[in-house]
């Protein structure tokens, strides 16, 4: 299996092969002296040239990953080149139609704009309440509210599409 992995802004190609219970791994074409085991769900112990790293992987609603390693943190993204269909990385995301998704489960308590309204980057679109807090969901770009799927009182789950801004 071959993956393109962006970690800390750098693109790397990771190739995996399963040999018995172990992974054989190459990074950017070079074989690595590495041992990777999953010690708890989503938590990996990685021994890389003697150094021990504990990597905890937390996916984000936008499909990227936060990778925790002790006190360090990285943003990451993994793509399977076989499935590559013109996916683009973070920096370009603010172009074109933006799909606004709920960052957590909650309840839509207030719509701040209507379909068709003009919207500024950073302007609030709607308010989702969760855990006794009201959380304003903002537009990532300036444009127009193309579609508003959310309604007041609607229960939403993390990742549910709330609106399109174009």
């Amino acid at each position, binding site marked *: *299996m071959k*993956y393109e*992995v962006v*970690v*800390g802004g*750098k693109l790397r190609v*990771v190739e*995996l092969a399963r040999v018995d219970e172990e*992974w054989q791994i190459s*990074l950017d074409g070079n074989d*690595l002296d*590495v041992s990777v085991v999953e010690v*708890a*769900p*989503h*938590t*990996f112990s*990685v021994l*890389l*040239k003697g150094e021990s790293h504990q*990597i*905890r*992987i*937390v*996916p*984000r*609603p*936008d*499909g990227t990953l*936060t*990778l*925790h390693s*002790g*006190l*360090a*943190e*990285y943003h*990451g993204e*993994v*793509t*399977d080149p076989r*499935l590559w*269909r013109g*996916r683009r990385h973070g920096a370009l*995301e603010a172009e074109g139609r*933006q*799909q606004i*998704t709920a*960052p*957590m*489960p*909650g309840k839509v308590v207030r719509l701040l704009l209507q379909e068709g309204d003009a919207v500024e980057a950073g302007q609030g679109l709607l308010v989702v309440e*969760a*855990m*006794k*807090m009201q*959380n304003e969901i903002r537009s990532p770009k300036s444009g127009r509210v193309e579609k508003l799927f959310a309604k007041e009182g609607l229960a939403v*789950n*993390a*990742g549910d599409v709330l609106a399109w801004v174009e």
Partner: protein
Amino acid sequence: MFRKILIANRGEIAVRILRACRELGIRTAVVFSEADRKSLHVRLADEAYLIGPAASRESYLRIDKIMDVVRRAGCDAIHPGYGFLAENAALPRACVEAGITFIGPSAEAMEALGAKTSGRQLARRADVPTVPGTNDPLEDPQHAQDLARGMGYPVLLKAVAGGGGKGMRLVTSDSEFAAAFREASSEALNAFGDASVYLEKYLDKPRHIEIQILADAHGRVVSLGERECSVQRRHQKVIEEAPSPIMTPELRKRMGDAAVRLARAGGYTNAGTVEFLVDTHYNFYFLEVNTRLQVEHPVTEQVTGLDLVKLQIAIAAGHRLPFAWETITPRGHAMEVRLYAEDPENNFFPSPGKILSQHTPSGPGIRVDEGVYEGWTVPIDYDPLLSKLIAWGNSREETIARLRRGLEEYSITGIKTNSGLFRRILADPDFVRAEIHTKWLDELLRRPHPLAQDGTSGEEAAAVAAAVWQATHNGANLAAPTPGGNTGVSESEWKREGRRQQRERLL
């Protein structure tokens, strides 16, 4: 001593209280909502009673239902914890009517000291300094300006009806005053339908320092020393420590005496906290009284060796505070961080959901007061506080090192937590030098923040782990990437779990 105590709370504080009861040999009964059947406090209690649906106002805030459980279960006392009904005088009143002991102050003392305005009035009578200012509405701009001059700039104009910064203006010189008064009044009128404003001395870089007091029913009131709680995000404490790094024995005595005077003036009993602001010249000003146990009580416990919940129970049972406690001096240094289910990388949005794995630190100098466990689903309905990580050390430096070590070991997957925020704070030079004030954290968070990194080999390890994770956990998702390109995990187990929960809640 009591036979059975009802704990009218949930989460980490309910667990904290039932641990104290268990150590005292007192039975515990807890209440729970439909969202909390599997919660840790229900698992650990001796008895547990369902009192309604998830919404707090239909369960944890319903005094009638709680008193009904008290009667059914045959409890002789109620501990309210913090939050929910802890500062609602109707609960101690209901207890008096039912002949049940409320573990806390009387309804009268709660009202006299707990309400901001009556608390400030009491403080003035008890000769406890308050932030200089006028509590009463000012109508005449010229009269207001005279008062401001007398107080000395900078001053704050605040809406009497207000809150949330609306109708508030900082005035740094006399020449700005007239315009600021007009603006504040008209903003207050627009926001609250009431134009009246009042004046308060503006404190530059104040510290939030509070005094823990205990008062028994026999007239003894003691101070257990201070906690420094200046690290706040939007007025919400996130790190607390004891002792305060700026404290001197002399200042501690003066602040402790002031707190004790105030508690006496209010006829206070049980545990309470007197909050102060302390300015850069070490002047202290009374802020408010919290007429209950605080979230941050463990830092006082770690440096004094006392168990505040057990002392609350002893006081409520009519025991006397032994005199020796008055002379207690703190040993070492303690610090607490509040772990919330929220995402510091994404506007601190809450992050409820299922905890897929959890590894909690321990070892020397580490205490965790937790309300969650692996496999449990953090519900959407309540405060996002998961656990408190508390470190103790011989010095502030050792305590910070232990807290960092503890955070490094702390691992929760499935939901996001704010532990990254603490890693950032604990590494900040200002924080390490204890140069903090109540606005310090909000300022820090406005600065651009590179993610903490530990070099190439950490990045390579992360890249490799991410690829293995993709190969073993997430392969299915990418088969059908969504058009927008930013919902790649839309069908992940997180999402499915979210749906399941939602279903469960709807059933």
